[in-house]
């Protein structure tokens, strides 16, 4: 028994060493280092990877992804190790999504000035070999708010993750109510808007969130914008109890999650990664990307609502109206205020927004 166990474990050990020696002969130029969560997460990692994959396959460049060790509990050291192994395998450009990558990226980029880094959903780190991509989430939120109001809904709600300090969630929330307000103004109506960060600080589903949103639907709220990871599951659970309840999804097209999801405020990760990789390979790094943040929105086709047949669930609001709206935002004829305060989880912030938006009545739930 003991002997066979030793034999087995040594065999496994040898196998793992051999596997480690099996180096790719071809350098893998484009590397994606994933954020926490899995590669095919239907969101962040998947979008980034698909963008890299699309560009690489179209231009016959070798690509691969590297998942830092320890999954959701990956440390900066795990991320650095993943980035370093990407460089060992010949990476010229490393694409890494998620704000958690900041420290690892800064360290590895300093040590490897010849390798380029793309910081998706990030910001400038003061290094010439790093470029950042961020999104105009307020545009996606605006389109969703505008669309549901045009559809005829006037009692809206929004539950957001991050406890008021997540910049992306804040921009989504502020854009959503601006869109609703503008559509209501155009239609000569007013909208009621319930707004909360209360049960979303950990971006997870909970009975608390389900009860809170059930209370909203019960009291007449028609559409709830669910903005934050697994929170959508609790919003779906709440909506299932009310015949006419609707949900707005976020980040990616979430229509498949439930028939209750009327639309999703999406940001095009794949499109943006593809675009930045194209600029890099076209030799525009120093001029356009080095230590800069590409802020992408409708003009880059990086924000919008899904229009595929199964995902388009509006009955009144038409695709033509959406096209006009989208073009208006892309061309700049519709302006959206993107200045969100650092902490939006306060009554004062929403009182100020309420005063500014004349067609919207906002009640904030702390």
């Amino acid at each position, binding site marked *: 028994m003991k002997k066979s166990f030793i034999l087995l474990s040594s065999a496994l050990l040898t196998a793992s060493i051999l596997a480690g020696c099996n180096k790719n002969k071809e350098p893998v130029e484009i590397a994606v280092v994933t954020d926490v969560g899995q590669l095919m997460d239907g969101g962040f990692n998947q979008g980034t990877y698909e963008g890299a994959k699309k560009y690489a396959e179209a231009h016959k460049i070798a690509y691969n992804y590297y998942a830092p060790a320890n999954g959701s509990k990956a440390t900066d050291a795990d991320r650095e190790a993943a980035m370093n192994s990407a460089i060992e395998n010949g990476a010229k450009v490393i694409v890494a999504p998620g704000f958690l990558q900041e420290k690892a990226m800064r360290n590895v980029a300093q040590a490897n000035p010849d390798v380029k880094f793309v910081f998706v959903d990030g910001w400038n780190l003061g290094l010439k070999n790093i470029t950042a991509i961020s999104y105009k989430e307020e545009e996606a939120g605006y389109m969703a708010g505008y669309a549901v109001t045009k559809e005829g809904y006037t009692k809206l709600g929004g539950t957001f993750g991050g406890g008021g300090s997540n910049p992306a969630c804040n921009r989504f929330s502020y854009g959503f109510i601006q869109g609703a307000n503008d559509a209501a103004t155009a239609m000569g109506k007013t909208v009621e808007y319930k707004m909360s960060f209360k049960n979303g600080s950990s971006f997870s589903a909970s*009975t*608390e969130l389900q*009860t809170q949103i059930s209370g*909203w639907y019960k009291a007449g709220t028609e559409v709830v914008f669910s903005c934050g990871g*697994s929170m959508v599951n609790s919003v779906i659970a709440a909506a299932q*109890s009310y015949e006419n309840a609707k949900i707005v999804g976020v980040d990616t097209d979430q229509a498949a999650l439930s028939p209750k999801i009327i639309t999703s405020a999406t940001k095009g990760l794949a499109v943006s990664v593809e675009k930045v990789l194209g600029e890099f390979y076209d030799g525009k790094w120093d001029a356009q990307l080095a230590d800069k943040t590409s802020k992408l929105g409708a003009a880059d086709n990086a924000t919008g609502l899904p229009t595929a047949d199964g995902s388009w669930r509006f009955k009144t609001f038409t695709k033509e109206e959406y096209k006009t709206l989208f073009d208006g935002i892309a061309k700049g004829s519709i302006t959206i205020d993107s200045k969100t305060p650092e902490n939006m989880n306060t009554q004062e912030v929403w009182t100020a927004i309420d005063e500014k938006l004349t067609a919207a009545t906002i009640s904030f739930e702390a």
Partner: protein
Amino acid sequence: MDAIFIIQQTILFTIPLMIVGLGGVFSERSGIINLALDGEMVIGAFAGAIVAKLVIASNPALANAQWLFLVCLLISAAAGALFSLLLSFAAINLKADQTIEGTALNMIAPAIVCMIGLLSFNSERIFSGANFVILKSSYSPSFQQAFDGPMGWFFDLFFNNIYISTYIIVILYVLLSVWLYKSKIGTHLRACGEHPQAAASVGINVYRMRYLGATISGALAGIGGFAYITTCAATTAESSVGGLGFLALAIMIFGNWNPLFIALGAVFFGFLKCLGVLSSQISWISAANLPSYFYNIIPYAVVILVLILTRSKSGCPKAEGIPYEKGER
């Protein structure tokens, strides 16, 4: 905000806490400290969600089939029971430290879930697409009329916007509690948690009783886990149940290892948690202008108070946590 809504939401908070708390009783009354309730919930929820996902993927029309809900509850009970065997084996046969073993199981459960999820579905999150809620509109028109009658509130409360898991769990709770206290096997099981040597001396197989207690415990935790994700997360399983297993454990101690007090404790917790969430939505509560934290703190403060006041009359099984050695006195 009407009373029916508050009662129904309270029930959603209460049911998982109650049944998992009873699971804790079965294990501890047989002499095994079961800290792994949380992990067993995770495993149960996950197994149920996978079955729901596979069935619904093959036939989307089954997304709100109640028989599928029943099957999933059974599967989650089986998965929870199976997982609890790891605890029983270590605690009973290997005589390992039960606290450490329970903690280890709580750590390994999310890992197992992530691994299976990633290997089989490319995702740590198992989204089943199920919708098991029963609404008024799903009944026949003649029955729907009853909702408008003089007893309308009764039908609204018990037949509209409900989950069958609620009724199943309440019935299970009563039956198992009575069984534990009134049946021969139940008495034997409890004896093993108080004085296993004495139990053995009258011919009770202590090992078997402890296996039985811990396995029932795992099964109930599994059911609780699946009921939880069904009612609060639209039957989507993740590697966590929000620490509910630990809360159930606290309620078990709060209820002095007694099913009746545990049920009351769970209702008390559920009601206050519900009020905490709805405090800003219910006019007569928001008029008091207390922060929602206040309602969230009360149950925990009461637990501490109750534990201080009842410390001399603790119902804690005397032999819990002590491995049973044959022949030892």
